[in-house]
């Protein structure tokens, strides 16, 4: 294959590719790479310096030990393209028989380190992961300056190569867990991993699972904490979250950041989160159960005031609750899409205008509005957005069961949810296990 000719033909199809001819150490060479990934002037300055150094040491430019780059012998087309796609530059001689691959000065295509956007930290390190894999690994290393930290990198996928890094702490991680993860990763799938769903398919987790098998976090300190406690952390290139394996129930309630507070405050935070989960999941179901099936459980005063507030509401409590829940879910979903400048407006429209009007129009009872508001607020006391969404689904099961069987349905629903949670496991580690470094309790 004539390399310059191939590159020229490629350039016709891909205008981003540059083919720049220049003199280095007395030789006329081509420099090739992607304009969007390489800072050309800076790279040329660097190249000249390198070439001078090589010449000063008496080495030829394309020698193995010239220090300019790694020589490529008889590269295939795919190899060349892979090297270019990875953001490397190629130098090849005019004749095209010799070629070097080198790391140029790249353009900065990542954010600078910023504070987290989905997890707030009150007391603790505020820097968050960003899209650059190396930055992320570096951040973790900074947070875990320990010689037990092991890093293995893989690149997954066929047409898209995705760099993936597995981190764990030697001696802390359970051997069995590590083996199953490494085994999976080393099969090097021939499917692409564009998103977490694909990754979860690749790991063989069930598709219809409500609970994600890996806990995601944006905070290097959380990842470092997980590593130190014998979990494995997976970093994907261009994905500003660390995936912590396995995920446990305690991930909902326990965050490393809590430990920056006094112990009593830490425990009360956690208790609060547990209560938040219970309130969020139970309250809507409890309302429906008490209003339509078991009103005898309410005290008479509350019963009468709820009856009064529901007077004139045309449909059963279940439909009423579902309707309002739908609106709430819509608000939540749209709040994510909205630009921050319009957010407050929607809050006002949704909260005040809709809330007030919907009661006055006798579409829903105002007790229900209070209950659903409390439930929605409580939803976000748990740690991690992915956990909060899983909870949001759980509440509908309880709602339907409560509408059918009242308080009995509610409690049976809890048992069902408990059973499901008890059943979930990640690589043989039950979701319900209490995690201590190196060992586990049921």
């Amino acid at each position: 294959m004539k390399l310059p000719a191939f590159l020229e033909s490629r350039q016709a199809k891909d205008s981003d590719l540059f083919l720049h001819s220049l003199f280095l150490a007395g030789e006329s060479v081509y420099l090739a790479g992607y304009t969007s990934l390489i800072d050309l002037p800076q790279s040329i300055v660097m190249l000249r310096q390198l070439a001078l150094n090589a010449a000063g040491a008496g080495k030829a430019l394309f020698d193995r030990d010239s220090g300019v780059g790694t020589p490529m012998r008889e590269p295939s087309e795919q190899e060349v393209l892979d090297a270019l796609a990875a953001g490397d530059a190629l130098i090849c001689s005019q004749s095209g028989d010799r070629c070097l691959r080198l790391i140029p000065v790249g353009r900065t295509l990542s954010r600078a380190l910023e504070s987290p956007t989905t997890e707030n930290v009150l007391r603790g390190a505020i820097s968050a992961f960003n899209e650059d894999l190396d930055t992320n690994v570096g951040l973790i290393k900074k947070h875990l300056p320990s010689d037990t930290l092991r890093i293995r990198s893989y690149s997954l996928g066929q047409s898209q190569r995705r760099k993936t890094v597995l981190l764990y702490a030697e001696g802390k991680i359970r051997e069995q867990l590590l083996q199953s993860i490494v085994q999976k990763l080393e099969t090097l799938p021939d499917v692409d991993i564009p998103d977490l769903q694909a990754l979860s398919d690749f790991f063989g987790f069930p598709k219809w699972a409500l609970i994600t098998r890996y806990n995601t976090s944006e905070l290097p300190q959380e990842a470092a904490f997980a590593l130190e406690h014998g979990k494995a952390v997976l970093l994907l290139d261009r994905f500003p979250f660390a995936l912590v394996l396995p995920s446990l129930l305690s991930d909902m309630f326990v965050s490393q950041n809590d430990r920056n507070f006094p112990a009593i405050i830490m425990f009360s935070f956690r208790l609060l989160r547990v209560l938040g989960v219970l309130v969020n999941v139970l309250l809507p179901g409890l309302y429906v159960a008490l209003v339509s099936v078991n009103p005898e459980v309410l005290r008479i005063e509350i019963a009468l005031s709820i009856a009064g507030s529901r007077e004139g509401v045309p449909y059963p409590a279940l439909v009423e609750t579902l309707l309002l829940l739908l609106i709430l879910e819509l608000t939540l979903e749209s709040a994510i899409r909205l630009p921050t400048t319009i957010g407050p407006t929607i809050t006002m429209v949704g909260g005040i205008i809709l809330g007030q009007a919907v009661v006055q129009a006798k579409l829903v009872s105002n007790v229900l509005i209070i209950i659903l508001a409390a439930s929605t607020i409580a939803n976000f006391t748990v740690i991690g957005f992915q956990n909060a969404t899983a909870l949001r689904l759980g509440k509908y099961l309880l709602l339907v069961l409560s509408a059918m069987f009242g308080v009995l349905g509610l409690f049976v629903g809890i048992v069902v949810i408990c059973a499901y949670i008890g059943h979930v496991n990640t690589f043989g580690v039950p979701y319900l296990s209490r995690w201590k470094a190196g060992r586990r309790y049921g």
Partner: protein
Amino acid sequence: MDKSRQVIVMFWITHIGLIFFLYPTEIIGSLTAGHWCAVLLGFLIHISMLAVYTKGLSQCAPLNVIDLFQGVGRVFAFAMLLPLAIYFIMIMIITIRAYAEIVTVIFLGNTPLWTIMLLFLAVSTFICLLGIESIFRTGMLVALLFFPFLILVVVLSFQNTDWHYMLPLMDRDAATFAYTLRRPFLKSLFAFVGGFLFLGFIPPHIPFQGRKIVLASLGLIPFFLVSVYVPLLTFGENTASKFPFPFIMAVDTVDVSWLMFDRVTMFFMISMLCFVILFLSLGMWVTLLMIKRGIPVLKDPTACLLLAAVVYSVCLLVPNWSAVERLMWWNTLPRYYAAFIIPLAVFALGARRRRMEAVRP
């Protein structure tokens, strides 16, 4: 990795689920004074059989009951386990039917019986399908969530007690043990038997210590006594014997003005029902283990659904409460088989195995 804790919690859950509804009725029905004597006698039987059973199991440690019996011979295993399977299926039918009836009587008057039975059965089938480890873990979580409720209500239930009803502590009837042959007492033993047989079927990767279980079962004594004595102390023997569910009635008299809810009983009863659902799924799992060994053609989801369908259709055929009571009475024989023969057989086999092992090396 000792998992005794999970096993103990499950053991408690299954027993507590059985204690509070029917047990006090039978005990109060069987004698007029000195009820503690009947409770303790039942408990003595329970704990001695439990000790024999766990001793036998620990002697043949990695094997479960099925493997143990099969070691003797296929026919022997079949003959031993068939009545046990029948016992388990019957107890499932009775439990589902009885508890569905209790639910309609006490708080879901308008809901048809078959839907409640369907709910119980569907949930326990679901849990059973998830496997024994999930059952144990679910038990832990459910216990964690519901036990505080339970303790609260048990403490509150003493609100209206009058301790003088405890007297007389003994009378001639109780002292002569004449009640032991009466029907209610014989029936009352169901609360002692149903719960511990599952211990023999736990797979070896959930190890537990028999001694701990026996100790833990002592913790059940207060529950047994409370379930009988709270209604007695609240209403007196004369009145308590008139109620089909005396403990529930007694808890219903509790008036707590600082609580948000009016009828605390309901939450209590429902936690009990949840425990019963776990008991059912456990029973179902044990039965399935036997069925799958007996008829190897049947595989997991099919066998489970089939069993559920059979149990459900029999449940539908039970017309009324007196039929349930008759069924319970019919089940006494298999119950004694399960309560006495199985533990003793396990113990005997365990002893034989130990002797053989002592000879062999």
